[in-house]
């Protein structure tokens, strides 16, 4: 199994990196570029076999160390 996790800055939190990329794309001549937000993407190989246990474990890990709940939100899938 594999966990695929997306960690993104919260909507209300400034994302200077996203802003810089948005400007760069626009300046490079790409059209129709709106807001850009940049986060992290993690893939974790899981050697457990129980999807429900895995889900709980990954949720706990996301909350505790993989994201910073003060400024980030996360979501994930187990496949």
């Amino acid at each position, binding site marked *: 199994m594999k966990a695929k996790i997306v960690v993104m800055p919260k909507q209300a939190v400034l994302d*200077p*990196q996203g802003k*810089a*990329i948005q400007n*760069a794309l626009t*300046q*490079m001549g790409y059209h129709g570029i709106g807001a850009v937000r*940049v986060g992290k993407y993690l893939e974790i190989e899981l050697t457990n076999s129980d999807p429900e246990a895995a889900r709980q474990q990954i949720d706990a890990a996301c909350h505790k160390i993989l994201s910073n709940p003060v400024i980030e939100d996360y979501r994930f899938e187990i496949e």
Partner: protein
Amino acid sequence: MNFAVLQFPGSNCDQDVVHALRHVLGHSVELRWHKEASLGAADAVVVPGGFSYGDYLRTGAIARFSPVMEAVRQFAAAGGLVLGICNGFQILCEAGLLPGALIRNRSLQFRCEHIFLKTSTPDSPFTNRIPPDKLLRLPIAHGEGCYYADADTLARLKANHQILWRYVNAQGEITADANPNGALDHIAGICNEGRNVAGLMPHPERASEPILGSTDGRLILESMIAALASRPTAAG
């Protein structure tokens, strides 16, 4: 000589390079804003350190698309000397003017300290003045200085003697302890196949005055000056 020192938004070692070249070594230097499309009458170009565009996305990723980089590309294609220091090295790799890439330090931390370098070959415009056994003591200051290239590229770098500097310890030995960032094969700096474009993570401009603790960096800058002086005409 006439040096052009590039200035991107977020460059922060630009003044240091100007200081070393102009005030310490006595050459003429012009800053080139990233929006300029020409390098003027430059004999050589230095891409300085810093955090161009905040290092957002990847180090050097956004800077490489600046108008001035197009001028640098042409300048390099015509054989002009280009030196990238730290963030400048990262920009040159992103721009494809040097092979490989610089990734996050293995420690995952920024590192600022002096290191020792061994020069692999005097056969380049950046190393011709460095005595064969001389270890260079230079400062590094980077979070993303771990040099990476795929196996083929590395083999080519070696075959063509493009690796100019490696991290070593005080005895000149290649040891794990001496490698500050996990760089592949302890690579601190390389040049292109044409040997006119080079990049390195350490800062020669920060080691050019006795009061700052080392003058070893001058050997690199003086190598460039010697190479330029021995050329029939300036490139450009």
